[in-house]
């Protein structure tokens, strides 16, 4: 029973793809409306709420003071985790972190970490003794497709608004965290045999493999991830890579606009 629907859905998605259309009328490389709100969580040191269509995600940044690793006495740390809790969709079940939520958190984490937007040496308080640990927690409240991009955007936007709570920890005055760059993720799913950008809930249900690309300010790639069943060719990748450049630039502008306010 459960699988009949996807099977009919797949047929319909194939039919639409053949005539270059999508279920909700979007163009192949067109994203849904995106909203971004920052500083929206009272107890977080940095925060953001992102909506992409009916998908809603919050990210909150917290800081802690810890001892540095012996081999890197001047370096702090950054950790990014995502929780796919049952609040977000009827399909999510309670229990220990699922492979899906582990993957989600790690892919977002790599995109931010590998972009180098946080200089770990900036997080030193007392070399060899005290460094800042930054924790970005992402909370998906409503999943209607493409939570990866929503989580990536919420995480970097929250990070870019973070205030280091030095005063509360008695190590000086509060100050704005220095963030060098705005890595942005773009996700593509194969639907009806071809890749499309920003999959909706239905497109994910009736689609195949997906590719997540995180690009930095200069268009360099910082993180890639292919997930789910399916294969792709280098030519297909080259095409979405180029689309990703455009979409990421647009979302980077959205972050900049929001910060301008």
């Amino acid at each position, binding site marked *: 029973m459960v699988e009949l629907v996807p099977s009919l859905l797949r047929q319909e998605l194939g039919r639409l793809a053949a005539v270059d259309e999508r279920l909700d009328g979007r163009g192949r490389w067109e994203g849904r409306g995106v909203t971004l709100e920052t500083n929206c*969580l*009272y*107890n*977080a040191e940095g*925060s953001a709420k992102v909506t992409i*269509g*009916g*998908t*809603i995600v*919050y990210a*909150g*940044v*917290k800081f*802690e003071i810890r001892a540095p690793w012996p081999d890197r006495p001047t370096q702090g740390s950054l950790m990014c*985790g995502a*929780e796919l*809790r*049952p*609040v*977000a*969709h*009827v399909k999510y079940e*309670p229990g*220990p*972190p699922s492979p899906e939520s582990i993957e989600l958190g790690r892919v977002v984490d790599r995109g931010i970490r590998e972009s180098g937007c946080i200089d770990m040496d900036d997080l030193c308080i007392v070399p060899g003794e005290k460094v800042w640990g930054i*924790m970005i*927690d992402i*909370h998906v*409240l*409503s*999943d*209607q497709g493409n939570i990866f991009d929503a989580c990536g955007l919420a995480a970097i936007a929250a990070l870019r608004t973070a205030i280091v709570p030095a005063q*509360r920890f008695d190590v000086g005055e509060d100050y704005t965290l220095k963030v060098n760059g705005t890595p942005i993720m773009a996700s593509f799913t194969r639907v009806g045999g071809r890749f499309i950008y920003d999959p909706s*809930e239905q497109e994910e249900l009736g689609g195949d493999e997906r590719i997540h690309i995180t690009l930095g300010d200069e268009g360099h790639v910082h993180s890639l991830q292919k997930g789910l069943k399916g294969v792709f060719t280098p030519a297909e990748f080259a095409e979405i890579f180029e689309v990703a450049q455009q979409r990421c630039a647009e979302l980077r502008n959205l972050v900049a606009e929001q910060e301008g306010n």
Partner: protein
Amino acid sequence: MGGYGDVQLLREDGKRLDGRALDEMRPVSIEVGVLPAAQGSAMVTHGLNVAVAAVYGPMEAHPRKIQRQDRAVIDVRYNMAPFSTSDRIRPGFNRRSQEISKVTAEALESVVLVELYPRSKIRVEIEILAAEAGTRCAGITAATAALADAGIPMRDLMIGVASGKIENIVVLDLDKAEDNYGQADLPAGILPNTGEIAFLQMDGDLSPDEFNLAMEYNFKAAREIHDIMVNALKQKQQRGEA
């Protein structure tokens, strides 16, 4: 309750530090239908607390052994987001959350007309996005609003409210400082129309008279929040019709 400091919580004019009267609650706002993926949902802002609730179901209850032949079971998860408090909370198992989830579920089972849905399960997910004393009550209010938003019949709208005691005086709706340095906290789930109580916890120190006054305050606040909730539900209906 902390109760150990010499912290002053009442001003010379008899008001509380944030200017509230003894029987005055913090501002409360309710919005329903906030989560597109859920069957019913609500966001409750109660002072600085933010609670979001999502409702899924009624659906088949499984595993089979949780099924009840004569009614639905309600499965509640109360969860505080890692960033909801001043010190980050580690995600995962937590005894406090488990206890609150259990008694909240039992309270909701007392209010929802569970007999209408034998063998089924209703999932209620309560997520605390910001915490500042009173999250379990904000969560109960959000859960009720989300159930109403999902169209699930209830005997009344259960409202979560708390009163407490500071400087030996009973007050309505403790804020964080009052909770940290106060002497008692009495959170309740009130059915304002039937005059019943479906949720009750308490810790601290209350004489029988103090208890009675605190419970009176709770009923008063519950009636106020009840009206806010009815308003929020009407507004959504009007949006739907417009």
